């Protein structure tokens, strides 16, 4: 499908977006990564969504969306919806989308997020009923705004396999604010507004968007600096951002970030861990707390990340519903700085001989950005500064790292997290529930109860209290030691307006205009 004109003067309203996020595939059933999600957000409809600068889940494609019983989430669609290619968009497409996602269960897909979905029922063309496994799941609507929530055209997509990008583009099977009019895999994507889009969000204000994938952030930086592109979104290096901040040709736009960086403790193998020779849970906890007292997160954020990350003082990042900062109050000098005396005291009270030897592992090949090495060099430096710890810092390449970390090879190690949906729960359930992905042998009945409870709590303030309680307890137990929270940053030309970075963590192209 070629179309549109290539004439020179026609580019005026075009917005050029650059990113370093690669696209795995256009098909929502086959991807679980930010690059793909950014594209899918523009071109596929979602039943519910969050409006700009809001975290409240509201109907998008849907007319209404609500719990009609504790295990039934019912969505009604307006009549007469169309895909960009003219096919009818009905409840059948919706059911098809979720059923295929679960059926395909692609290794690269996010079908695992639909863990609570039992079945989808379509009483009529405009009604969809989601039958859930547990009652009152407050998380399910949030998941519908995210990876597995995209609705696809059942006449184009395959029911049992990931559909190739070229087929999707060729069939113009889009229903979001945009449709793709030119697609060069992992190079350029051209979007034009979808005339048939009838969702919640305002229609696109620009005529054309061209998204270019850059491999290297410094090239992205030069491109935006030179005006070759209008917006650079994810991921400019701290150095680049620092440099651009002083450049009047561009504007640096910040938004809340959901990305966090933290250390994980293996409760079996860390010093005094359950499987070590001198196993002692209390001493192990003292070690973790002493480490927390010695960190200077601000220094790392400033030196390594030039302010693109901010200190993180809780397992739930700042800006989320219910987030608190228990680490700030409990450890260090009270204002985020380190407190060696406190650390020494914690260790001494627990009867621990200093220095304590720690082995800390981090990932070497840019999985969490190129600055991990610098970050952990500083962590090591800070922990060793007062002679309380000696740190053996090592790194491993990603695939091996992933295997090793769940097989108890690393006593203390680095991880990062980017949320699947924007809710505090996404920082709790996956981490501290029974079968959490960390697999670090942490288990605490009280925390687990609380997590289960907040997930089905329909009363907001009660839920907030529960979430705060979990954070407080985790700051004592310290299964993970939060370090930094990332901001979303976009750099745009001085004449670009409408770049909104909000807690949805989706950069939506529709409102972006030039001039």
């Amino acid at each position, binding site marked *: 499908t070629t179309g549109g004109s290539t004439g020179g003067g026609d580019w005026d309203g075009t917005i050029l977006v650059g990113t370093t996020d690669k696209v795995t595939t256009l098909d929502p059933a086959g991807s679980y990564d930010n690059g793909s999600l950014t594209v899918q957000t523009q071109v596929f409809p979602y039943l519910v969504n969050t409006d700009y600068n809001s975290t409240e889940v509201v109907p998008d494609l849907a007319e209404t969306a609500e719990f009609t019983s504790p295990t039934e989430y019912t969505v009604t669609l307006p009549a007469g919806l169309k895909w960009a290619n003219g096919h009818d968009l009905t409840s059948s497409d919706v059911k098809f989308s979720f059923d295929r996602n679960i059926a395909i269960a692609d290794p690269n897909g996010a079908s695992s997020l639909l863990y609570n979905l039992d079945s989808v029922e379509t009483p009529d063309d405009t009604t969809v009923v989601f039958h859930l496994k547990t009652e009152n799941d407050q998380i399910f609507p949030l998941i519908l705004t995210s990876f597995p929530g995209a609705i696809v055209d059942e006449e184009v997509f395959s029911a049992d396999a990931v559909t190739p990008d070229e087929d999707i583009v060729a069939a113009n099977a889009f229903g979001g604010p945009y449709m793709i009019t030119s697609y060069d895999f992992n190079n350029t994507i051209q979007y034009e507004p979808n005339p048939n889009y009838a969702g919640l969000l305002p229609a696109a204000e620009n005529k054309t968007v061209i998204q270019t994938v850059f491999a290297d952030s*410094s090239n992205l930086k030069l491109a935006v600096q030179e005006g070759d592109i209008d917006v650079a979104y994810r991921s400019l290096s701290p150095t680049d951002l620092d440099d651009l901040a002083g450049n009047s040709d561009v504007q640096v736009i910040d938004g809340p970030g959901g990305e966090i960086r933290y250390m994980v403790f293996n409760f079996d193998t860390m010093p005094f861990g359950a499987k070590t020779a001198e196993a002692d849970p209390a001493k192990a906890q003292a070690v973790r707390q002493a480490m927390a007292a010695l960190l200077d997160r601000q220094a790392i954020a400033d030196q390594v990340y030039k302010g693109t990350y901010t200190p993180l003082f809780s397992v739930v990042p700042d800006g989320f519903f219910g987030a608190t900062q228990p680490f700030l109050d409990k450890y260090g000098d009270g204002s985020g700085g380190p407190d060696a005396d406190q650390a020494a005291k914690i260790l001494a009270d627990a009867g621990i001989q200093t220095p304590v030897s720690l082995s800390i592992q981090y990932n070497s090949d840019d999985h969490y950005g190129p600055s991990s090495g610098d970050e952990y060099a500083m962590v090591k430096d800070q922990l060793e500064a007062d002679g309380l710890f000696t740190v053996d810092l090592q790194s491993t390449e990603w695939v091996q790292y992933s295997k090793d970390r769940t097989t108890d090879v690393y006593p203390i190690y680095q991880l990062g997290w980017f949320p699947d949906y924007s809710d505090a729960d996404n920082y709790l359930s996956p981490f501290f529930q029974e079968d959490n992905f960390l697999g670090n042998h942490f288990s605490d009945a009280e925390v687990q109860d609380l997590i289960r409870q907040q997930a089905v709590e329909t009363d907001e303030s009660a839920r907030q209290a529960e979430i705060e309680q979990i954070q407080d307890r985790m700051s004592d137990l310290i299964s993970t030691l939060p370090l930094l929270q990332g901001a979303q940053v976009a750099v745009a030309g001085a004449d670009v307006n409408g770049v909104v970075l909000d807690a949805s963590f989706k950069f939506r192209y529709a409102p972006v205009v030039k001039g």
Partner: protein
Amino acid sequence: MGVRARLGRLPVIRQVRQSVGLQRGMLVAGLVITGVFAILAIFAPLLAPYGFNQLKGDDGVSFGAQDPPSLAHPFGTTVGGYDVLSRVIWGSQTAFFVIAVAIVLSIFAGVLLGLVSGYLGGWLDRVLVVIADAVYAFPTLLLAIVAAIVISHGQSNLVGGVFAAAISITVVFIPQYFRVIRAEAVRVKAEAFVESAKVIGASTWRVMFRHVLRNSTRTLPLILTLNASEAILTLAALGFLGFGIEPTSAAEWGYDLNRSISDVTSGIWWTSIFPGAAIVLIVLGLTLIGESLNDLADPRLRTRRRSSDAAGDDGAADDDIEVVPGGAIDADAPADRERA
């Protein structure tokens, strides 16, 4: 023969004496540059103002990141807050260490395989040659990357990291040594002195190690220097692509260059220019030596000028080398490839 004469037969020293004019100039320049780096490597703990992974001075104040060159940090500091000068100096230690390990390993493996393959021939030879050729024809950098992934499996402490890099480079070099030694072995095995050992009734092993091996290694010093420079480039490339040694394990120039990519686009030049220049210089030094040795070993390329020094060698060295032309030309091949 006297000590002096014996000394004169040592590789490199002999060539320095043998060379004249421009060729001597290039050889000596190469030796000097390489020597300076060797000194930096050996005395890095004394010469470098700070440790390679040091972030704070003795006063406990951190260096700061990307500071321009100053009195305290003559080459500035890196994005990670390391002292560039220190890392450049320590980097030479890593470079030499990796070269040494890579070359020793590949020489042992390559020479043994080449010797057996070349001397014994037969199907083993054919199989090895096809494999070596296949590997040889493949972009070595990619090979090194794959090898690095396989090898860096485990943890990357100092020794592990350096060894992983060295072994990845070894994988690349083995086919080169294999080819050179095999070609030499094939040539030498047709020489009359090998046949005369055979007609005497010497066993295969005796012929192989006493007669063939030692006469097959005359091109080694030359390939060695040329490979040494290749090893540095490969190591740097691995580091640059993020498959190399970690900054806390050792200082590595390629890694520092990798980290300086975004500095360049912000006009911060000191984090890339110094480690880059270090790579260029040491490779220049080693290549100057290698090429000079190559020229001297090749009678067609050797310059002879009217000169009255260079005595004491009674033309012996001359014959000695004149037997090599095949070898010297052969040695071009590995030298000419794979500088990535």
